[in-house]
């Protein structure tokens, strides 16, 4: 139905390369693969480690934990972050908790069940071997963090408390009030600072990685810009680890920190690293909605609100600007309860998100009308919000009962919106929250560029097409504390590699390309601000590559992105100079890379003509409008090779093999 003759066929947007046959996971039963790999990996003599240098970019859970652990192991670590302190990394904002297969609750949990839930939650698009290992090391993470002094919630007996999270039926989530990410990050940060004091880690804050140095087909270093002085510096090492987080800010509005960006991984992609499943992004249904055009970021509220809140919109569009308390019961449409009577307001994240968007698209959204552009580029105003109503819950539990469960969330909502959620219904809307895609890595977390490792949200590995709640923190710390320190040695055993000097052609090329790009950005001297471009790109991505995708829309998005990108390089206004603290220049460089990434995301989404995980593809649905996965055609990881700006990216498929788990189609009706 959506295929039109006017637009070019999908295959004109990319070419297909060789399949990825080997992910380096050892043979044998899934339970023993990690032990086998650890045994087979080559070792580095402790006395030799200090002669080996490892660059780690990023100081979040994955980067900070890796830097601390490799420093403790005795390597010479150079650690970089763009913030003013390693403690600011955006892992800090995670609220809910961290899963671990401890089975402290004696409720049938096990490594296998955590593994199973994670693969199933990822809608069977994650690599089995990596996920099993993640579940396997999860218990060690809790031990490690407790030993560091992370103040997890405890019971009166003094032992650790657990709760269930993200719709799973076992209680395996460890938490620290609503600030689990903060506490885990501070634990990693303290371990990192201990190594800084010990001299094994050298910390470079306010340094942004702008290029990867690849010499003799190995990743050998990075080029950074000192964000205070503007100095462009090159750093060389025996291996490079990218732990630079996700790219949700391609949508402009997301729950990411303002500084989160794709530049480090995108620069590595341009230097040969494959980008895995770029179109997989997670959209969270319960965020505080947009108040207007000047909104800079979105704030997440815990999904637990849906346990007691009822979601509705007015039945008639003309009621949308009324005080919600004046809208009679019969004029309200509790649409999730209507469409999904079995699950009601507790349908999975992607369904809740998509239906909220549908209601607003129908013109039944609530809250302030926000300016946006339709497919033809015409300006329109749409209310982007739905009600999350606690009136019933307050009637049932009393105001105090509701406050005891959700008080901190209600306070947060009140502070941001200025409305009292005990009296008027909350307004919520979905927002981009996490990106499952990222640089492709093998079982060792190595990209296809030798010596380039990628950890945490920056890689694609563990969450498939949808991430299970409370598993982002788990993955970051698993990669940083336990996986990378046991795999990177296999590569470093062959090091030290021949020294790469500042006058090496690879370094000279990298440094001069960074300078040229900065000079080019400053030279445009156009009329539009960086943010105005970023917002427009965000609108395109959200509209066409967000919750619901169509072939037609994605093709349109690609052409719009191409146009906008050209306009950016023709008309952007970057004030100031390079040799200074220049935040406009920083943002301009990031947005320039977002254009290229955004296009690849659309190409990836376009080629994957199936609905899976959080991604609804309109051309792939069941008769009653539910997501339809196509395991026959798309049971693979899409790993994209860069071919140049304007060139067709090359798709390398990594077939997904499920030996331990049986494939199933999900259903929520």
């Amino acid at each position: 139905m959506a295929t039109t003759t006017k637009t070019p066929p999908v295959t004109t947007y990319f070419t297909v390369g060789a399949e990825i046959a080997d992910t380096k996971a050892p043979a044998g039963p899934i339970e023993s693969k990690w032990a086998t790999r650890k045994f087979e990996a080559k070792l580095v003599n402790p006395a030799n480690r200090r002669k080996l240098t490892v660059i780690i970019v990023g100081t979040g859970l994955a980067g900070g934990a890796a830097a601390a652990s490799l420093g403790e192991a005795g390597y010479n670590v150079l650690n970089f972050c763009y913030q003013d302190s390693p403690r600011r990394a955006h892992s800090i904002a995670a609220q809910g908790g961290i899963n671990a297969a401890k089975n402290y609750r004696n409720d049938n949990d096990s490594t296998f069940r955590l593994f199973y839930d994670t693969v199933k939650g990822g809608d069977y698009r994650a690599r089995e071997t990596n996920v099993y290992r993640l579940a396997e090391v999860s218990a060690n993470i809790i031990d490690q963090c407790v030993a560091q002094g992370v103040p997890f919630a405890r019971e009166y007996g003094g032992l650790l408390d657990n709760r269930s999270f993200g719709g799973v039926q076992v209680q395996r989530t460890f938490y620290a009030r609503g600030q689990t990410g903060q506490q885990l990050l501070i634990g990693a940060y303290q371990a990192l600072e201990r190594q800084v004091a010990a001299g094994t880690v050298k910390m470079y804050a306010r340094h942004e990685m702008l290029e990867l140095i690849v010499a003799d087909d190995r990743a050998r270093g990075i080029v950074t810009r000192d964000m205070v002085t503007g100095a462009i510096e090159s750093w060389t090492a025996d291996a490079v680890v990218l732990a630079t987080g996700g790219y949700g800010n391609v949508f402009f509005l997301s729950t990411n920190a303002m500084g989160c960006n794709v530049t480090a991984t995108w620069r590595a992609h341009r230097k040969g690293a494959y980008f895995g499943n770029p179109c997989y992004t997670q959209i969270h249904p319960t965020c505080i909605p947009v108040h207007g055009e000047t909104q800079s970021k979105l704030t997440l509220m815990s999904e637990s609100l849906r346990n007691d809140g009822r979601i509705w919109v007015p039945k008639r569009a003309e009621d949308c600007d009324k005080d919600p308390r004046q809208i009679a019961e019969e004029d309200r449409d509790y649409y999730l309860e209507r469409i999904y009577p079995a699950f009601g307001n507790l349908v999975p994240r992607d369904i809740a998100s998509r239906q909220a968007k549908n209601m607003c698209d129908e013109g039944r959204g609530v809250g302030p009308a926000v300016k946006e552009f339709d497919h033809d580029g015409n300006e329109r105003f749409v209310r982007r919000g739905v009600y999350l109503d606690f009136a019933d819950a307050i009637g049932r539990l009393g105001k105090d009962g509701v406050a005891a469960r959700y008080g901190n969330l209600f306070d947060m909502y009140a502070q941001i919106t200025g409305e009292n959620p005990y009296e008027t219904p909350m307004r919520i809307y979905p927002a981009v929250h996490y990106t499952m895609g990222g640089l492709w890595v093998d079982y060792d977390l190595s990209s296809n560029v030798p010596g380039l490792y990628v950890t945490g949200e920056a890689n694609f590995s563990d969450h498939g097409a949808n991430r299970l709640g409370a598993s982002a923190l788990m993955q970051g710390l698993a990669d940083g504390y336990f996986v990378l320190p046991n795999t990177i040695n296999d590569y470093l055993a062959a090091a030290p590699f021949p020294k790469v000097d500042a006058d090496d052609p690879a370094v000279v090329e990298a440094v001069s390309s960074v300078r040229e790009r900065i000079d080019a950005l400053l030279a445009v001297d156009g009329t539009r601000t960086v943010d105005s471009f970023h917002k427009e790109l965000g609108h395109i991505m959200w509209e066409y590559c967000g919750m619901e995708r169509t072939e037609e829309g994605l093709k349109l998005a690609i052409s719009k992105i191409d146009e906008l990108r050209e306009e950016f390089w023709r008309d952007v206004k970057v004030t100031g100079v390079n040799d200074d603290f220049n935040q406009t220049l920083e943002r301009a460089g990031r947005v320039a890379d977002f254009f290229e990434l955004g296009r690849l995301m659309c190409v990836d989404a376009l080629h994957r003509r199936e609905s899976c995980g959080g991604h609804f593809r309109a051309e792939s649905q069941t008769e009653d409008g539910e997501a339809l996965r196509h395991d026959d055609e798309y049971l693979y990881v899409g790993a994209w090779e860069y071919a140049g700006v304007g060139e067709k990216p090359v798709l390398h498929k990594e077939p997904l093999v499920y030996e331990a788990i049986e494939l199933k189609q999900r259903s929520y009706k």
Partner: protein
Amino acid sequence: MNVTLRVWRQANAASEGRMVTYQVQDVSPDMSFLEMLDLLNEDLTVSGEEPVAFDHDCREGICGMCGVVINGTAHGRGNSPVPTTTCQLHMRSFEDGATIDVEPWRAGPFPVIKDLVVDRSAFDRIIQAGGYISVNTGSAPEANAAPVGKLKADRAFDAATCIGCGACVAACPNHSAMLFTSAKITHLAMLPQGQPERKLRIKNMIAQHDEEGFGGCTNIGECVAVCPKEIPFDTISQLNRDLISSLFSRDGK
């Protein structure tokens, strides 16, 4: 609404700064304070002027990166009905037509980098001096091996919520970093895992605190009043108690 801003502009650490007045039009009461600064910066950029530099990142009040003094109080606490970071302060806390003074944290150990951006690396060095538990990856015992009474765990947590924003130092008439330091001391002192290094930790952290040039604490309480995370005043007394007992202890000499 429209507001008049008086913003501290300073090109770099070496140069002199001054307050510069700007008008910001069409401010929505739902904007956060930083979104209002974004709006100013968009206008400045279009007119070819350099935007005002300010630190910010998560904009949800947890990373600790943002922080300016607004109308004389850190994070604009004086204008906010609740404890807040700058990013969680909203324009509805101000009157239409208001004149708002915006300045950087001012403290010797926090030199200005540019405009409203300061260097808070002194905090990292205080943590490096001992704000951690020495445990290598892999050597941790089973998590439930050491129970922690809930009340102590809660007290550790209250202290551990510090985001390291530096508002305490900015607000303190002595520019002391005692609340920041005592938050970490208290967090680790309440936990069994923190005991082996407890005495050594406090001596080293206090020595580094003084070395960085922070002032001494005179228990005025301005720090607690502006703290976005409501770090309790009593953490400072906890620090003092531990410090006094460490002076009578050979541990760590």
